[in-house]
């Protein structure tokens, strides 16, 4: 089994090197996003698209919706953590992966738009995601339910966005160190991990 210790932002060379079945430990910044955050991002992209078309017709310059966070070439973690507010900071209590397949139809556009380098989750994802990850990124499977182990690798809550969506659905920007062991189950070469082989 090949092991990789990687840091964000990950380069395309690093991503290309990864193959299904490899083990990854990730350090750096990840953003959590689940159903509601994905829908909100997609709504904002749609709004951008609508406005840009109007601007084009009216021959005006168009400026994008201001996104509160930067997903470009980043890592999305399918996770709805338990977080505790302590004085001036947030403390992650328990933060394992959630079922990724709920985001099967929501993820493809986001992967393409933001050149997502990695998605961390559990249970795997569908065909459309595999296609969008081609020459772009990887899907990394983490052990479902291992939420305290995951929390022990999260060093800090850097920020929280869209808190109004609720604790589980908000976007948490996290600093992680040696987050893993993660298993590459979709690589950037269109390969999907097959159990037993």
């Amino acid at each position, binding site marked *: 089994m090949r092991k990789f210790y990687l840091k964000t932002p990950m380069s395309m060379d690093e991503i290309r090197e990864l193959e299904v079945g490899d083990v990854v430990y990730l350090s750096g910044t990840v953003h959590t996003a689940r159903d509601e955050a994905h829908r909100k991002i997609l709504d904002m992209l749609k709004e951008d698209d609508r406005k840009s078309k109007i601007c084009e017709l009216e021959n005006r310059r168009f400026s994008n919706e201001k996104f509160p966070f930067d997903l470009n070439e980043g890592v999305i973690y399918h996770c709805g953590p338990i977080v505790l507010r302590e004085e001036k900071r947030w403390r992650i209590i328990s933060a394992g992966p959630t079922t990724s397949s709920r985001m099967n139809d929501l993820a493809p556009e986001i992967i393409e738009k933001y050149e997502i380098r990695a998605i961390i989750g559990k249970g795997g994802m569908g065909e459309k995601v595999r296609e969008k990850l081609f020459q772009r990124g990887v899907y990394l499977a983490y052990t479902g*339910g291992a939420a*305290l182990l995951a929390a022990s690798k999260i060093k800090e809550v850097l920020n929280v966005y869209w808190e109004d969506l609720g*604790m589980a659905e908000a976007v948490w920007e996290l600093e992680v160190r040696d987050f893993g062991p993660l298993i590459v189950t979709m690589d950037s070469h269109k390969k999907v991990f*097959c159990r037993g082989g």
Partner: protein
Amino acid sequence: MIPKKEAIVKLIKKAVTSVPKDVEEAIKTAFKEEDNDIAKIQLKNIIDNIELAEKSGLPLCQDTGIPLFYIKINPSSSKVEIKKLEAVIEEGVREATEEIPLRPNVVDPITRENRGNVGEKIPIFHYDFTEEDLFEVTFVPKGAGSENMSRLAILNPSDGLEGVKKFVLNTVEEAGGRPCPPTIIGVGIGGTSDFSCFLAKKALLRSLDKRNEREDIKRLEEELFEILNDTGIGPMGLGGRTTVLGVHIECADTHTASLPVAVNFQCWAARRAVLREKEDGVFEIV
């Protein structure tokens, strides 16, 4: 007597910070018997996580579920007023949410507005009336990862046992890694559509060392256990020997024209705890 709110908080804490001994043993056995490297990594993570929960007293999974309470009570000898009991339990859930803490998981199904962990008809209370001199409250925090994979089929009576086995196998194969295997599979056979679902979930309360008392149903449990582990789905769906830790079947008689079969998944984090009245007003967590 009605337990105090503090006892309910303790019950919830015990449930969300540990897995029952029978489940922990089964996971450790699965680890020993596994020879697939990736499966071993998954099982090792699970075992380490259980240890971390025991040491820290924190929820072992971030999905602290939707609160379910199964109450066993003797209606003729008990003086417990049910409405008051439910009010205390609701208070306990609210306090546990802040204190342990739990994730606020309960939302309005239409607006998706978050309610905390107490909402319209939630917690869900189930009552089991007994003639024994017994009063106990079982708490089950049911996570969505496993619950979302639940399935119901109304088979034709002519589909018979083979149809039942096929449906359970297909359901487990389709779910793959999503319900966080190794899982415990609850199967409800018979009754009506809703009652088979109830039985499938109730079957999950049984500990892993207990088989159904009816010989033919027990054999079906054992057969399904073999069939499901032969799929090779393995821990987290990444392959391996252990896909299920147990199969529990509960049956009820049914209509001559019906064969309802329900499957309910319990993830490996099979959290449950029981608060039992030892003597009048004195409770213990078992």
